[in-house]
């Protein structure tokens, strides 16, 4: 296979398999492929492996027991140890601090070389960090396993751009990665089981959690008793959190949302908690609490830029996220590209690990060799998927959430686009689809490239026509020519043909 060097930089290759993302899915995928004799390059934008679930303090500067605040930590240390051994043997190359900003099919060396594989374009996530190895510009591999995970899904509310209002996952990332408390008095709000560990971890670290506000009623779970019973570990985890909340005397309020946040000059935030009906309309009495931290989370949304970059087909999942279409061996619709973890549908770390292992075995062409293991993995994935679907159905995004917004509510934080401007683009300029809304009012055009406001902007476009979200609503905001912001200098050096075409 050709390594297609360009004048612009150093190429590393050719590997049998390139894995993007060193979270639960990517770690399992890399280990599974290397276990089967393949050479693997594992790339992650972060400084160390673990992804979002196993985010932990810098291994070179430990802060208390590593496992503190973690679930399934033993599974992580086993994967880490396995990869360490593979790295020692030279079967796995780990590239941390390396962002994949562009993916393209590798130009075939000759006409017979039909499966040329994939070229990943990399840039250091932060230049100037002391990493063991310099980040190569290009990585070439025959097969690609994409495990890019996701991030907190957000719904704008008035005041959500005030300092001290954070994504629930970000609050947890500070605790897990740095043992840092983002505030002393907190409200945790949004929907889904993830609010519970955030509240518990805040309280364990010494904060006062004045309320956990869950927008939905828990009765939504009742219809899914069988799906829940099939994964006893999740039931035990739920019970553990319920106990912890009771022990810390944290009120858990269902059908309640943060509908407005105001701050005084000292930074204290007056947070309005409102009672909702099943559709998410404010129906009941509103109370106000004073806090210095608001943690908001409406589930997670997958990072889809790499999946769209390779041209793989996408679909809308139960939770209205755009996700990759994969078959029962984690193969995407693009030949040679496998997807595992949150990018195939948000479903938690254990599902990500199972999918990663399956993808690794499939990419190593070893499905038949391990028929028994594959059957077990598929059954496990199926169980966890059913559970995830139950969770999504029990914790939907409130349909009428946009009724909480005021005209001056910020929708796009980067470009400071207000709700009013989005409405005007629609009502006065005729922008009924997301692409036109984006062009007219500019949400999703700033630094974060719609990662934060993309879902909400799509929801507003769909809500205006009173219809559910479609792939067409989400894909324009998920598809970026460049998968990560890069220095223009770097872009100028890339001379490959497909880059020119794409730009």
């Amino acid at each position, binding site marked *: 296979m050709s390594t297609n060097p360009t004048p612009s930089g150093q190429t590393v290759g050719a590997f049998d398999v390139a894995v993007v993302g060193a979270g639960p899915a990517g770690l399992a995928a890399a280990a599974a492929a290397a276990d089967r004799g393949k050479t693997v390059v594992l790339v992650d934008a972060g400084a160390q492996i673990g992804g979002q679930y196993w985010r932990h303090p*810098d291994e070179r*500067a430990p802060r208390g027991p590593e496992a503190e605040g973690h679930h399934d930590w033993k599974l992580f240390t086993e994967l880490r140890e396995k990869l360490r051994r593979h790295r020692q043997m030279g079967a796995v190359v780990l590239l941390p601090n390396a962002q994949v900003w562009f993916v393209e099919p590798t130009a075939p060396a000759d006409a017979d070389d039909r499966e040329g594989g994939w070229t990943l374009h990399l840039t250091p996530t932060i230049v100037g960090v002391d990493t063991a190895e310099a980040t190569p510009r290009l990585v070439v591999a025959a097969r690609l396993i994409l495990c890019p995970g996701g991030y907190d899904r957000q719904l704008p509310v008035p005041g959500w751009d005030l300092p001290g209002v954070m*994504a629930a996952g970000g*609050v947890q990332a500070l605790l897990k990665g740095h043992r840092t408390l*983002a505030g002393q008095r907190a409200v945790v709000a949004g929907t889904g089981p993830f609010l519970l560990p955030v509240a518990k971890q805040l309280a364990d670290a010494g904060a006062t959690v004045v309320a956990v506000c869950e927008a939905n009623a828990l009765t939504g779970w009742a219809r899914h008793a069988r799906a829940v019973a099939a994964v006893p570990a999740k039931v035990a985890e739920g019970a553990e959190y319920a106990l912890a909340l009771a022990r810390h005397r944290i009120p858990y309020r269902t059908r309640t949302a943060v509908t407005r946040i105001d701050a005084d000059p000292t930074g204290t935030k007056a947070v309005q908690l409102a009672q909702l009906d099943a559709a998410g309309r404010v129906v009941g009495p509103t109370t106000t609490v004073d806090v210095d931290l608001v943690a908001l989370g409406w589930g997670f949304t997958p990072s889809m830029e790499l999946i769209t970059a390779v041209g793989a087909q996408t679909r809308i999942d139960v939770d209205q996220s755009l996700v990759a279409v994969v078959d029962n061996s984690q193969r995407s619709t693009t030949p040679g590209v496998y997807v595992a973890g949150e990018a195939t549908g948000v479903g938690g770390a254990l599902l990500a690990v199972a999918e990663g292992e399956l993808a690794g075995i499939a990419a190593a062409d070893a499905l038949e060799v391990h028929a028994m293991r594959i059957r077990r993995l598929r059954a496990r994935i199926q169980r966890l998927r059913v559970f995830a679907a139950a969770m999504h159905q029990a914790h939907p995004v409130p349909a009428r959430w946009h009724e909480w917004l005021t005209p001056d509510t910020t929708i796009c934080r980067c470009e400071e686009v207000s709700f009013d401007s989005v409405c005007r683009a629609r009502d006065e300029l005729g922008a009924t689809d997301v692409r036109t809304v984006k062009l007219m009012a500019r949400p999703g055009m700033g*630094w974060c490239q719609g990662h934060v406001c993309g879902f909400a902007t799509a929801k507003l476009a769909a809500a205006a026509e009173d219809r559910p979200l479609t792939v067409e609503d989400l894909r324009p905001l998920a598809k970026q020519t460049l998968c990560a912001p890069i220095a223009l200098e770097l872009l100028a050096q890339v001379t490959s043909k497909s880059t020119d075409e794409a730009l």
Partner: protein
Amino acid sequence: MTRHPKTQAGPRTVEDGGTSVVHLTLNGQELLAHPGQTVGAALVDAGIQSWRTTRKNGRPRGLFCGIGICYDCLITVDGAPNQRACIVPVCEGMQLSTTAAPVDAATDAPNDGGTKR
């Protein structure tokens, strides 16, 4: 800058970690951090929630996503503007500045995800 009620300079949790401390400055004022922390975590530990204002409306901002996605936490590090505080690790002697650096008007092509120091 917004401070939340527990305003005290320096890391509050030194005892649970190593013994060494990293010295930073923020607009010339000394700040302490743990080795291995990010700039964002060090600022929050020091009771600081906000360190920049937005271009259009001058709204204060600090950490939001905490994982490098939202670009709300931008700060100038050793003279290099637009660094994500939530992912840049602290280094001994690092100089942080909240002075707004001139921003390229063409923000639709964000230009410095990976930056020089």
